[in-house]
């Protein structure tokens, strides 16, 4: 086969899709192995949401709808984590619910609990370092062959279990619990209780509730009556968030903001049933594929903020880092920015190649 320019340009218009797939995989995966530091300038709609949460009062409550399934986790989990982190940092209470997909139940729990842990670790940091030096703990670590971090994690989990009165959490690490009780360390956790992020006090995760619109409407009347239990099946009425005399949550009246993290059409439902009907502000975090749909809602004021794909998460993380420079760290959103940049560039290059080939062969054909 003889090489001719015409053949070459025809080839450019007709590159096999498998080559594109391969190159795509390479440019997406490679940057993940190197830590490129990428800076982003937060978009307007992200700033709007951030400011809104920033200006809520401690003790206010936001409701997060986890309306995505594991597939879009890469885009939406970082958003959820950034928003929940921000809320917890500001002393704002968080409620989470999964309405659209049963499979989101675990995701929402992970998002909220991981941030609660993160902050509780921050709060108990000094105490944990102190405990590290304890002989019993050193022995426990050696026995179990685990790292400092893992022990910190377990101690915080037990501390939360004590305050949340969650026996099943306490049963997870019986030996460690015994050590904490014996050394009296468990009693020294008490001062941290007020600051710590605890289930039922600072957050409640309802898990997946079937019924979608009917649940959305029902929450406008009475949350306890409609949802009855949290993800573990414990009655909501037992929790401080729902039975306190001063700041209990009854219905949407007591929710300052609804943030819907969505990979499907749930944002529309939240807007129709919660914003229009109950007058609650709604913000959304959506996958980049469907984000273009929601900009008109921003203009009409039906959404007070919009996080657009992984970039939205990166923007929010950037804002968190600006406001909490000591503790906030770049998350998966910022981590993915390098990959996204390269992927976009690659697509652009292929489009250009395709067009060059197209023009040259078209001219050649006409000549």
């Amino acid at each position, binding site marked *: 086969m003889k090489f001719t320019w015409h053949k070459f340009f025809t080839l450019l218009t007709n*590159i096999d*899709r498998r080559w*594109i*797939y391969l190159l*795509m995989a390479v440019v997406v995966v490679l940057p993940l192995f190197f830590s490129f530091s990428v*800076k*982003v*300038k937060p*978009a307007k709609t992200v700033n709007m949401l951030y400011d809104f949460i920033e200006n809520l009062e401690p003790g206010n409550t936001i409701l997060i709808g986890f309306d995505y*399934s*594991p*597939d*879009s*986790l*890469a885009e939406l989990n970082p958003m959820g984590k950034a928003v929940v982190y921000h809320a917890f940092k500001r002393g704002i209470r968080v409620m989470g619910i999964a309405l659209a997909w049963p*499979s989101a*139940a*675990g*995701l929402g*729990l992970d998002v909220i*609990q991981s941030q609660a842990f993160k902050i509780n670790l921050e709060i108990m940091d000094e105490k944990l370092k102190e405990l590290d030096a304890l002989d019993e703990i050193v022995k426990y670590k050696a026995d179990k062959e685990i790292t400092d971090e893992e022990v910190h994690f*377990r101690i915080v989990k037990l501390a939360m279990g004590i305050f949340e009165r969650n026996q*099943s959490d306490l*049963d*997870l690490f019986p030996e460690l619990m015994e050590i904490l009780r014996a050394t009296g360390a468990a009693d020294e956790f008490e001062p941290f209780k007020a600051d710590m992020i605890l289930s039922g006090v600072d957050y409640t995760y309802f898990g997946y509730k*079937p*019924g979608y*619109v*009917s*649940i959305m*409407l*029902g929450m406008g*009347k009475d949350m306890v009556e*409609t949802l009855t239990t949290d*993800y*573990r099946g414990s009655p909501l009425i037992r929790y401080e968030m729902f039975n306190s005399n001063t700041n209990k949550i009854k219905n949407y009246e007591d929710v300052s903001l609804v943030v819907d993290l969505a990979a499907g059409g749930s944002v529309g439902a939240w807007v129709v049933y919660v914003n229009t009907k109950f007058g609650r502000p709604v913000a959304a975090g959506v996958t*980049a*594929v469907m*984000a*273009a*749909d929601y*900009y*008109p809602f*921003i*203009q009409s004021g039906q959404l007070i903020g919009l996080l*657009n794909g992984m*970039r939205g998460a990166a923007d929010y993380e950037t804002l968190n880092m600006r406001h909490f420079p000591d503790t906030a760290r770049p998350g998966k959103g910022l981590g993915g*920015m390098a990959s*996204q*940049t390269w*992927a*976009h*560039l690659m*697509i*652009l290059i*292929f*489009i250009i190649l*395709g*067009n060059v080939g*197209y023009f040259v062969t078209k001219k050649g054909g006409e000549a």
Partner: protein
Amino acid sequence: MKRQIPLMLVLTLGIIYFFVPLVSIPWVVDNLQYEVFNKWLKIIGVFAVIMSVASLWRRNAVKIKRKSGDYAYSYLELIGMVLMAALAIIAPRWNIGNGMVLGGIGGNSVYNWIFMNMQVPMQATMFSMLAFYIASAAYRSFRARNIEATLLLITAAIVMIGRVPLGENIYQFMLKLNGGEAAAFQWSRIFDFQGITQFILDVPNAATKRAIGFGVAMGMLATSLKIIFGIEKSWLGGTE
């Protein structure tokens, strides 16, 4: 009669629901909205799930029975279905070490472990494939065939650059060349990809969406009315 009853139900409820947002009589709102609508939907939903699972079971069972094609997958599907349901519903909550619990759906249950370590990666893989498909679809279809296609191509390029940090870097670089924010003639503005992207999303994108939205809203209204008034009966299957 089989057709008359559903049509009458649809007509009556359709007309009642048309006026529900207008009234805020507590009795109507409470009873109709919360009691009737919510509870009925829940009950119907439960039965629908049972029927759905039965149909899925039936399809796979038929496949296995006939040993048709890739019937091995059907085994996998049925086993997965039974295993997950059993773990969540009937398995006892035994502590099985490593901080894990056998039954239940809590954060440290086996169910959750399988979910996080099998279902999540598998589904995320499906979603990730979108990146490959978009790349190849973009490559195939973004050709500057005519003026409209060229405009689309340019817009796509701007948005793609504007959506990643690269766009902002280019703008900052150009701004420096331009002599910073203070310069009188801001030619570097044309490289403000993030700003232009925001404009494209806010204005032309929103305008198009609204335009189509009007048509869609009209179509929805007309479809609802056709169903409520019984003009359209296809959803019942067949004609008369």
